[in-house]
């Protein structure tokens, strides 16, 4: 077994028993990152910083002072977390050369927990996308492929993070999820992706896409790893007014190995026409497995589900159109000179933003405009309340929901590019939980008929991440997904 094929919990135990040092672990991962550059999973590698942190971790351990489960563990950080002294781009041309003089709360928490950042992972520009094809730094490749010679997308927007974890470039990655940006790429790359309750992770220092939806979370190889990594990311942060003061439990301790009597809801509205039959099959298999583990299966209805996606594509762009106004060429990042102020704005933003970002800024600007606000933004907020109410009603009756994560498997790079609506369908199963701010986790459910990974999604009520981990762990064991990305064998990572 190579060091890169370990899990976080496995590496944690072996670091503790002294089987290898963090420096060895980090070196192995740094050289793998070097070897796997063609995945384009990282925008910036930080090997020197990583080695320094690893040595410090080893020194701590030698003194008998570890900082917790993440101490000495190599991770990727999605390039929208501001990292002090390290280029932070949000994969946008407009943040050219931006080196923050501050550290985001989430990446800072991870660092305080001893985690070792080995680089900043690629992503869709400003987290807008479901295939990691909108990055200014080029598309990311999925380490999963078929024998058709076509590269697959890793999903998005956290495509670089998911690809990196799936290809063994790091043991986990800190990513962010607005409408599915952690869970959908986890599904496409055959790994675990977890979005906690809105407010669990501070948004301070995270480049904003849609403030009422953005939430950080981990991408890992196992459910247990997700619980360990999330523990190190969350905190109540007075610098973020929407950060929750809710008590933070021990997430890993929630993994009890027993879900007997747990009520699992199966929402009928998730059975949509765009979904392939193999997804349906996978879903049914998941239901059977949970039942055999002692869970009680309950058919439920979330009647407003079908409005979640269109509503999301009003609220998220509306907030984004305002959040992205600060990228004006005046204070940092790219500036393209113009003949006057407006000309400079237009030239800078015209050149600095990619097509998808511009599209969303335009949609967002439109739905907030005088005369359209009531019909779009206000209506969308009302629908959002109904969606939240749906979930509230359901969680009186069940403990957790099981759904597919995506309606289809990873598609080749270059496909679904012309029709943004087709692209938006990617998020159809992940968006409802985002709209309601609920914790949700995607784990590998199996392979498609062609041989690409497909994910299953679990959703619980707000601040009940424990049930998510408890149930996710059981499902993971029952499914026993043991496939590896073909890329790993090919490259030997």
């Amino acid at each position, binding site marked *: 077994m190579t060091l890169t094929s370990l899990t976080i919990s496995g590496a944690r135990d072996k670091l503790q028993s002294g089987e290898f040092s963090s420096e060895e672990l980090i070196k192995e991962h740094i050289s793998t990152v070097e070897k796997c550059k063609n995945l384009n999973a990282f925008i910036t590698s930080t090997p020197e910083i990583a080695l320094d942190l690893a040595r410090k971790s080893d020194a701590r351990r030698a003194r008998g002072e570890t900082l917790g489960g993440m101490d000495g563990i190599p991770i990727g950080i999605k390039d*929208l*977390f*501001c990292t002090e002294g390290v280029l*932070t781009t*949000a994969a946008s041309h407009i*943040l050219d050369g*931006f080196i*923050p*003089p*501050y550290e*985001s709360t989430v990446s800072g928490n991870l660092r305080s927990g001893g985690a070792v950042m080995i680089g900043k992972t690629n992503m869709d520009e400003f987290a807008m996308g479901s295939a990691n094809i909108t990055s200014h730094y080029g598309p990311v490749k999925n380490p999963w492929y078929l024998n058709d010679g076509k590269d697959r997308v890793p999903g998005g927007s956290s495509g670089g993070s998911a690809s990196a974890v799936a290809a063994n470039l790091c043991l986990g990655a800190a990513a962010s999820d607005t409408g599915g940006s952690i869970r959908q790429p986890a599904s496409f790359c055959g790994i675990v992706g977890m979005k906690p309750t809105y407010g669990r992770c501070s*948004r*301070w*220092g*995270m*480049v*904003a896409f*849609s*403030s*009422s939806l953005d939430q950080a979370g981990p991408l890992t190889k196992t459910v247990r790893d997700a619980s360990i990594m999330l523990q190190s990311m969350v905190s109540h942060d*007075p*610098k*973020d*007014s*929407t950060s929750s003061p809710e008590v933070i439990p021990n997430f890993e301790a929630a993994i009890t190995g027993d879900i007997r009597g747990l009520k699992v809801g199966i929402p009928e509205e998730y059975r949509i026409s765009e979904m392939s039959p193999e997804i349906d099959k996978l879903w049914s298999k998941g239901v059977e497995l949970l039942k055999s583990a002692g869970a009680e299966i309950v058919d439920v209805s979330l009647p407003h589900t079908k409005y979640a996606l269109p509503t999301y594509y009003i609220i998220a762009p*509306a*907030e984004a*159109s*305002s959040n*992205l*106004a*600060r990228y*004006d060429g*005046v*204070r*940092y990042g790219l500036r393209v000179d113009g003949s006057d*102020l407006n000309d400079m*704005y237009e030239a800078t933003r015209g050149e600095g933003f990619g097509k998808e970002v511009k599209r969303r800024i335009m949609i967002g*600007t439109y739905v*907030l*405009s*005088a005369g359209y*606000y009531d019909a779009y*933004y206000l209506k969308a907020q009302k629908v959002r309340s109904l969606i939240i109410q749906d979930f509230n009603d359901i969680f009186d009756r069940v403990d957790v929901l099981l759904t597919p994560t995506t309606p289809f498997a990873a598609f080749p790079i270059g496909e679904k590019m012309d029709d943004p609506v087709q692209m938006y369908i990617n998020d159809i199963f992940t968006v409802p939980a985002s709209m309601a701010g609920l914790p949700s986790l995607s784990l590998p459910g199996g392979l498609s008929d062609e041989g690409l990974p497909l994910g299953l999604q679990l959703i619980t009520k707000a601040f009940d991440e424990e049930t998510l981990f408890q149930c996710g762990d059981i499902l993971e064991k029952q499914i026993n997904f043991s496939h590896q990305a073909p890329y790993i064998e090919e490259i030997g990572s």
Partner: protein
Amino acid sequence: MSYFISGEKEDWEVVIGLEVHAQVVSDSKLFSDASTEFGAKPNTQVSLVDSAMPGMLPVINKVCIKQAVRTGLGLNSKINLHSVFERKNYFYPDLPQGYQISQYLQPIVGEGIVTLEMSGEIREIGVERLHLEQDAGKSIHDQDPRNTLIDLNRAGVALMEIVSKPDLRSPQEAGAYMRKLRAIMRYLGTCDGNMEEGSLRCDANVSVRPKSTSELRTRAEIKNINSVRFVEDAIEYEAKRQVDIYDSGGTVNQETRLYDSDKGETRSMRSKEEAHDYRYFPDPDLLPIDLSTEFVDEIRKGLPELPDAKKLRFVGEMGLSEGDAEILVSEKEIADYFEDLSVGRDPKLSANWVIHELFARLKKDDLNIDNSPVKADRLGSLLDLIEDKTITNQIATSVLETMWTSAEDPVAIVEKKGLQQITDTGQIDSAVEKVILENTDQVSQYKDGNEKVLGWLVGQVMKTTQGKADAKSVNEILRKKMDSG
């Protein structure tokens, strides 16, 4: 006192509403911990939040919430227990976020009333609302030939925007309203009212209508006026301009105008067609403000006595005239000075000395009451000397002059200079006799019935006694001696 502009065919009434921007007294900004101190070097009071660095988030400064509620209560306004911050979106280099965080549909303070007294007539001016918002930075266009420079020290500083109803009917009323708001906020300690430093600015919405009609006509908004006098001047100019337009058969455009105080005129800035669509929406980075009634009651309990109540007390309990009371309450510092002074002393004498002697002396040196070299306790010692008849009023004036440049106690000054009042009537008698003997012409004029000359003769006696005689006694003695002699 009604104010009308005579047009060609009829008289016109002016309708004015003011939007006053008052900087909140707080150590740090509305959503960041950067200092609000005035006059610092450019861009030295700017946090990561103020400069809108990526990923930065606003966190409400609770002091500003308290100050807004306090002001609302001082304006007899409804406090909205639930209010919401929204984003007002527009691009400008001194607005780093690309939006101003403000309140729109749900402001923290609702309707209220400000009472004005215009030449004895009570006018109640409606307050529409008060909301909290961020100030912008400053664009400096005249320091570099090619570039505009930006100073973000002000960016994010808390402002209260106080919107009046269109209840004001003359430039003077608008000025009085501004002064009243300023006084109330200074009493409350919620805005320092310093117009030179930009702590208090206003936009004036002005329209005119024929005296006989009651419909509102198209208004123009004059932006960013930074003194009470300019408010009055700008409105007066603008109202006349609009009357001229109507008289010549034209129509007034709804537009934003600027007041040029050098030329004394308003100029068009942008028309309604060029107006921004601000795309307001609730700021998702901030939670709504939900106040408890206990919180508001606590603030209410801590309110100081405000000018209107103070004036009532000055008139009712102290027996001051309406006019004197009005002057004394117009500024918190004046009222404080007067109240310190009048403790245990005759309120009328105290009021007189503040309003006449002290103000005149301050004016001469271009000083304010809070930097007066003679504090209330020292002036009080001087008034005590008048009250116990140690010195005359006239002498007291000259003692004040000495006190102005000397730290010496008035008692010591009086003693050193021997300025005690002459109470010995024999001394006054001889002075009077001397004056009668030396001015026989004037004495016979008096005897012929010319009463006016008496004052002149009193003056002569005062002169010979170096002002130390009591003028009233001199008067009596003179009269008696001439009438009998």
